[in-house]
């Protein structure tokens, strides 16, 4: 079973990297880009076969290690 965890900066946190990417896109002529937020995702391979149990476990992992709740939000998806 596989799970994916998306981690993004909270909207209240300034994202300097996203800002640079937005500026670069603007320079390339993409003037319709008004903002960019950069995030990351983790793909986890699990020995678990119970989707509900896996989701609970991975959510715990996200809160404990993968994301810093002070500045980041996370979303967990369990993939078949």
């Amino acid at each position, binding site marked *: 079973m596989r799970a994916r965890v998306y981690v993004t*900066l909270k909207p209240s946190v*300034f*994202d*300097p990297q996203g800002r640079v990417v937005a500026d670069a896109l603007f320079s390339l002529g993409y003037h319709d880009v008004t903002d960019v937020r950069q995030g990351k995702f983790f793909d986890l391979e699990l020995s678990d076969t119970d989707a509900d149990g896996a989701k609970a476990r991975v959510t715990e992992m996200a809160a404990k290690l993968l994301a810093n709740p002070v500045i980041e939000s996370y979303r967990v998806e369990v993939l078949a």
Partner: protein
Amino acid sequence: MRFAVVVFPGSNSDVDAYYAASRVIGAEASLVWHKDSDLGNPDVVILPGGFAHGDYLRTGAIARFSPIMASVRSFAERGGAVLGICNGFQVLLEAGLLPGAMVRNRDIKFVSAQIRMRVEHTDTPFSAACQPGQVLRLPVAHGEGNYFAEPEVLQQLESRRQVVFRYVDANGGTTPEGNPNGSLNNIAGICNEARNVVGLMPHPERACESALGSDDGRMILESVSRALSMAGSGRG
């Protein structure tokens, strides 16, 4: 007075801190490997600068789970003096021993520079030898020293006088020009509510001898002996 300097894989200012404590201040000092669990009954614990565990995932994110951190936490909870310098500050934030978090520098650059830092409060173990308002010249070297906290946390830090050190410009003003990384409220260093745990991004241990461009960093380390002697015989 005895210092314990924690060594994580990827620490690079551990020996600088050890040298400053033992040779410059003349205290006893020992290096403690992150996989150990015994700090060795110190009076002061330093979490040094560097790139613990490669700073993978987030700065300090893996280091906070190192076995020694349980001992550092209980030492801090007993009121022991803990100083986190640069990466050590980031570890204290990730560990929740100090509030807030670090994000990428405002200008996306690794900043290596000599900065000015104003001492806001002298009632911590790492500022007791300073004068309130005193400006220290210290080096910074970091890519993620942009201090962030939610507005209510920031307000609480200010009202509880937990902002111990602030970046200032040549005129002593807390301006964006004096701020090397975009930290909110020009924050260079903070303490916990109990005031025994302090974290700062600048490197006092790299500025303890005039040959290094500044010896202002001595004030930070000498503060501990003053604070401990004021508190009696320290913890010993």
